[in-house]
């Protein structure tokens, strides 16, 4: 699993780290059940704050891709398929596109809800 972050880019580092893991799940180089290095190890490797890495990992947990266990590190969930990781990526793209258009959070949720009921 390759982590690469660019501190000079506008994107928060935690988000960049989450993006690396999502990409690795999406392209199949990391599979369900695989154990990722702990947030502390990643932080030491990249020379960033551990809480930054944890923020990225927590984001992945909220997306259902990662399971965080105290003392046991981060494990890719059984549901984390490449398609699922791509879906999480698309959701992020939707949000950033909506923000670029000046939509509020409420409007984004309303948009998704409308798609859900319409489907």
């Amino acid at each position, binding site marked *: *699993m*390759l*982590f*690469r*972050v*660019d*501190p*000079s*880019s506008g994107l928060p580092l935690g988000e960049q780290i989450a993006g690396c893991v999502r990409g690795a799940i999406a392209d199949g*180089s990391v599979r369900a059940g*695989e*154990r*990722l*290095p702990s947030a502390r*190890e*990643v932080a*030491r*490797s*990249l*020379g*960033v704050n551990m809480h930054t890495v944890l923020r990225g990992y927590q984001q992945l947990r909220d997306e259902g891709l990662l399971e965080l266990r105290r003392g046991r590190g981060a494990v890719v969930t059984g549901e984390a398929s490449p398609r699922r990781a791509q879906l999480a990526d698309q959701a992020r793209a939707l949000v950033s596109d909506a923000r670029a258009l000046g939509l509020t959070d409420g409007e984004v949720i309303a948009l998704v809800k409308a798609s859900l009921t319409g489907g």
Partner: protein
Amino acid sequence: MTMSPTPRRTLVAAAPALVACGAVLVTYLSLRDRLPDRLATHIGPDGSADAFDSPGAFLAVIFGVQLGFGALFAYLVHWIRSVPGQQRVLAVIGGGAAVLTGWMVVALLRANAAVGGDAGDVRFSGWQAVVGFAAAAVYGLIGWVLCGKNPAHVEAQPTATATATAPRLGLRDTEVAAWSRLAGSRTLPALGIVLLAVGLVIGVTAGWPSGLTSLVPGGVMVLLSGARVTVDRRGITVTPAVAPWPRLNVPLERITEASARRVDAFRDFGGWGYRARPGASGIVLRSGEAISARLTTGDAFVVTVDDAATAAALLNTLADRRRADGG
């Protein structure tokens, strides 16, 4: 350029099996008239016979075992030719085992002939076994000398052809990167845990000194069967998957170039675990893909792990960057 010792060592390993078969055949033919119809083929711990068979079946089994093991050891000697130290030991063990078996079978045939008719009366002195082992040991010494010295330099491992030559990972100047992956098998740690559990049960029921015989190898197996391999600004770091210690680190300044290659654990390194041999050392937990880092000393440091190509590319990029920084 020294000649390969392999042909000679193949002879040391396999010739005694042929000689033993010849000796058994000659002994059988010369004693034939005095042998019982059913031979005593196995001797119990008290020195009397406890298994019987017809001479034909007995000889067929003995020839099969001798020739089979002779062929097996000849093959092994050939197979492990890139690790000359172990090749020599294998050759001597193969030859010595054939001497021991041959000796015992000849002695058994003579014991059968000595009773004149009833195989049930066959007695076999424990001394025969002692003499047999002594003969095997003497052959071991002679064979050891016949094997000849190990060649000083084995040509760079023939199986270790590079699958990718020094690629780089494109990183922007402001980018930082790290690579991490678990290496090793899933079965070994499971086996280790079973051993630990058995050790606990033995410890509780039969006392802790007995339990230790299972607990210690179990613990070692769990500790060393899985490893986390990390490549980052600190170089290559290998730690057990389940503990942060012991930690093995090769810093970037000691690495000149890295590549991905395939290793055969037994053939290239003579086994599994932390391996060190002239010209190469490393963590070898299985055969297959591995990161191979050429060090400033000229030696190679090898870690078996999947996706080694990515790790090697990152390693090269990080080492370049370090050199460019004037490090």
